[in-house]
Structure formats: structure tokens, C-alpha cells
């Protein structure tokens, strides 16, 4: 593997993040903080503890996961879509680099930014609610795996999309609803039995549950199921990207 192209793509993507600091970092941090203010402080004080954890603290992993999923998808999809849109993708396609190097560059940058955001929000939340991290290793593992997996998904969306509207389609119409309905703001035990079963079909439930377990040791589904689900996502995304590059889908006529 040649590291110079990977570094070039990675640094160019991170430079784009620096150029758009307000939109890339400040905006998601502010909007997540607002969730803490509204749900944690204003409404949370009226909601009883869940599994021995105050409501404000309970929603922290879900909120980080919400931001992590949406930002990973947005960052990675925009990263590869913009060269396609501007035409400068010709340089990537004509360069002596492997598909793996291209993916590591773009997805690595998108995931780095999401992880950084996740850590910033984690730090910010500690100002609003009492936090504890029961399993720091697993917390970081979930953070990194989720960021990488959803950045891979974003990369696929960026290649598939042929307009800005499609770029926003999946984050807005799929990721956000699944995250809101995936136990970010509640434990699925609070739902009627029928809806508990329906909710188990939502893959985000497993991610939120596993991530929350790493904080408080409480989960809606088993940790093994959470790890299996994220691994399944990761493998499916990698397989799709391998197919895209092998066939040249939406990249090479």
C-alpha cells in the first residue's frame, strides 16, 4: 500500500472540515447541546430514572449515536460526491491508487471527524449531566466501529447519488427516523410488547443499546447482538464498496 495518496486524500478532506469549521463542528455540537437543555434539563427533571440512571444521563449515548450516524453518513457522502459533482473525480480515477487506498482516505477522514465530534459532545454533555463510563474500551470500540461503518455507508450514498437531493435522502428519511425510533430517548422496555418486537427490526436499536451499555452497563438487547449487528453492517458496506469498484458503478462508464 502506498501511503502518500491515502495521506493526500485524508488531509484534503480534513482541510475541508477546517475550512467549514462552523458547519462541520460547531453546528452539530450546538444542536446536540440543545437536546441536552430541552430533554435533559427542562423535561428530563420531570421524568423518572431509567435503570437507575437519570433521564438526562440516559439520553447521552443515544444523542452521541444520533450525531455519529448522521454526521458519518453526511461527511463521507459529501466527500466523494463533491468531486463527482465538480468533475475533479477524474484525478482520483486516473491516479495509480488502489480502491482500498481511496476508501481509507475518504472514509478515514469522515470517520475521524465524526469521532472527534462524538468526543466533543461527550465532553460537552458532562457539563449538563453526571456521566459515567463503565466500559471505556467498548465505548471507544462502538464509537469507532459505528463511525467507520456509517462512513462507509455514506461513501456508498455519495457514489450512488446523482444530485444533492439524493445526498440528503438517506440521512433525513432513513437514518434520523431510525435513530429517533431506535431507543435514543427511551428504553424499548417502555414500549407495549408489540412495538418492542417491531423495534427489534430496527438495526439502530442494537447500536444505541450497545453504546449505552458501555456507559451504564444497561442495555435493551444483548451486547453480543449489538456487536454482531455492527459487524454485519460493516461487512455489508465493505462488500458493496468492493462491488462498486469492481464494476465501476456510477464511477466509470
Amino acid at each position, binding site marked *: 500500500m502506498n501511503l*502518500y495518496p491515502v495521506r*493526500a486524500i485524508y488531509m484534503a478532506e480534513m482541510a475541508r472540515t477546517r475550512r467549514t469549521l462552523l458547519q462541520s463542528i460547531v453546528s452539530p455540537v450546538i444542536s446536540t447541546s440543545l437536546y441536552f437543555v430541552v430533554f435533559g434539563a427542562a423535561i428530563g427533571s420531570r421524568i423518572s430514572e431509567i435503570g437507575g440512571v437519570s433521564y438526562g444521563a440516559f439520553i447521552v449515548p443515544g444523542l452521541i449515536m444520533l450525531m455519529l450516524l448522521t454526521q458519518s453518513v453526511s461527511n463521507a457522502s459529501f466527500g466523494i460526491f463533491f468531486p463527482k459533482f*465538480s468533475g475533479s473525480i477524474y484525478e482520483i480515477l486516473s491516479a495509480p491508487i488502489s480502491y482500498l487506498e481511496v476508501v481509507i482516505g475518504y472514509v478515514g477522514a469522515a470517520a475521524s471527524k465524526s469521532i472527534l465530534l462524538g468526543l466533543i459532545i461527550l465532553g460537552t454533555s458532562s457539563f449538563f449531566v453526571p456521566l459515567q463510563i463503565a466500559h471505556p474500551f467498548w465505548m471507544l470500540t462502538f464509537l469507532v466501529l459505528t463511525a467507520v461503518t456509517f462512513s462507509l455507508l455514506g461513501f456508498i450514498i455519495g457514489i450512488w447519488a446523482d444530485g444533492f437531493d439524493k445526498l440528503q435522502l438517506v440521512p433525513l428519511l432513513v437514518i434520523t427516523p431510525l435513530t429517533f425510533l431506535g431507543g435514543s430517548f427511551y428504553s424499548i422496555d417502555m414500549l407495549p410488547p408489540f412495538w418492542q418486537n417491531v423495534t427489534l427490526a430496527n438495526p439502530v436499536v442494537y447500536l444505541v443499546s450497545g453504546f449505552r451499555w458501555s456507559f451504564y452497563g444497561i442495555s435493551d438487547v444483548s451486547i453480543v447482538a449489538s456487536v454482531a449487528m455492527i459487524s454485519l453492517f460493516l461487512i455489508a458496506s465493505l462488500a458493496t464498496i468492493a462491488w462498486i469498484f469492481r464494476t465501476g458503478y456510477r464511477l466509470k462508464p
Partner: protein
Amino acid sequence: MNDPIISINGLNKTYQGGFQALTRVDLTIQRGEIFALLGPNGAGKTTLISVVCGLVNPTQGEVIIDGFDSVRDYRQARERIGLVPQELTNEAFETVWNTVSFSRGLFGKAPNPAHIEKVLKSLALWDKRDNRLMTLSGGMKRRVLIAKALSHEPRILFLDEPTAGVDVELRRDMWDVVRGLRESGVTIILTTHYIEEAEEMADRIGVINRGEIVLVEEKAALMQKLGSKQLTLQLQTPLDELPEALQLEALSLAAEGLELVYTYDGRQAEEGHGIPALLATLEREGITFKDLHTRQSSLEDIFVDLVKERA
């Protein structure tokens, strides 16, 4: 000279909709030459370049670049190539320095600020190195594309319509840049529909039409072989008709009998029996003239004739 740097063998490209853009293209580019690929819009010029550079998958055939297969040995093949695309495609918010440095890294080369500086200076971009691309003029943006293509020190440079939409002065500057690159040992393949550009710069010319290579020839030989010449004699006295001795297909009267026009090709000129024989006949017939001038057909005339012939 037989030192091929690019060999294209039996290349076919059919797009998904069924449109066949290239049909059994065989072409060899020699090391160190400037090769101009001419053709009307939609002839297949850009598709051919795109296949060689890895932007388009070929349907059939192979491309060997400096001994390396463009698909199997894509790393070695592509690191030898620099591509300047037809469209002005740039990351608008990047600075000139950053975007050129990015290209070098993308092509797997270690950072080399001295080389980037040399490239920017050679293209008169040094003063603009900290400017964002969006603030540059069209001509400057095209220079940036050339700088990006040269950032990794390629041995082969593809210029796809390099002076499209560029003013005359800048076009001449660009030609000087291209000649300078050739002197430094870079092989240059340019597509253009400015015949003047090919005539000015190319060593060899290839004509592509409807996806097929119609001909490949040394520029000078092509002009000699296919270029026709015209000798116009301004007569002292107008002629109503040509005398019997001058009833030749190549001869005609113009300007109400005041001009005698003789059309001949390069080969006749080389053999030298066309004009002397004509002048001798004129003397025998007592036809005198007060002035004469000759005109040689341009590459454009040759190109138009070729494309028309094959249509």
C-alpha cells in the same frame, strides 16, 4: 524512430446504451513526440484518452504504457501519465499550491515543494500560489490543471483540448509551455479541433472519425501527400476558353478569363514536372502572364476532406 511509449491494440468501447465510441483502434505513440489527435466533435477523442488514463473501462483490447498493461499493471502505467481534462474541473475553494501538492501526493509521490515551485513558476502561477481557484481566470485555471498534471513528473502528458476557450495570446503561451515540456523529454498527446494548433505543434497527426482511426501520419508527410497546391497566373489578356493543349482537369479559368488556375498535389510538385510543363505549353501557345501566386492547402483543408470522404 521506433521507441513506442504507448501501444493501443484492438481497442473497442461500447457504452451501456449500445453506442460504439471506439472501433478496433490500433495506435502507437512514440517516445518524446507531440502527437495530435484530430477529429470532429463526438469522434471518440476523449473516450480514447479516457480509456488510456483509466477513466473509462474498455470493452475489448489492450493498452500498453511504457511496457505496462493499463489494467493489470495500473499502478506502474498510471504513474507515468499526467492528464489535463477538457473541462475546467477544480476544487473551487482550494489554493493553487494546495491543489497542486494534493495531485502529487495522489499520484504516490513524496512531497517535494521545490518541484511544485518549479512547475508553478514555469506556468506563471507562482504569484497566484496562495489564491483560491475560484478567484482565477479561465486561462489561469487551465494552467492550474496543467500544473496538477505535471506535479508528479509524468513521462506522458495528455492534453484534452488544452486551449479550448483560451484567448489567442494565452494559446501561444500554452504552446510554448508544451514545446518546453517536449524538450524536457515528456511525450505529449493532444486532442484538438483547432487545426492550427496541430499544425503548429505536432510531429505526427492522427485523425479519428466515428470511433475509427482514419489515418496516422507524420505532419510534414501528411501535408505533402494530401495537401494540394494551387498556382494562379494572372494573364495579360483574358481567355474565352482554354486552348486544346491546355484542356486538362487540373486547369481552369477564373476572374472572367483573366486568371488561369492550376491545381496540383504535393507529389507532382516534388517530382517537378507539373509547373515546368505547364509554363512550356503556355509559351508555345503564346499565352503571357503578368503575375503569379501559389497557395498550399492547410491541415484544416486536409482534415475536412478526409472526414468528408469517410462520411
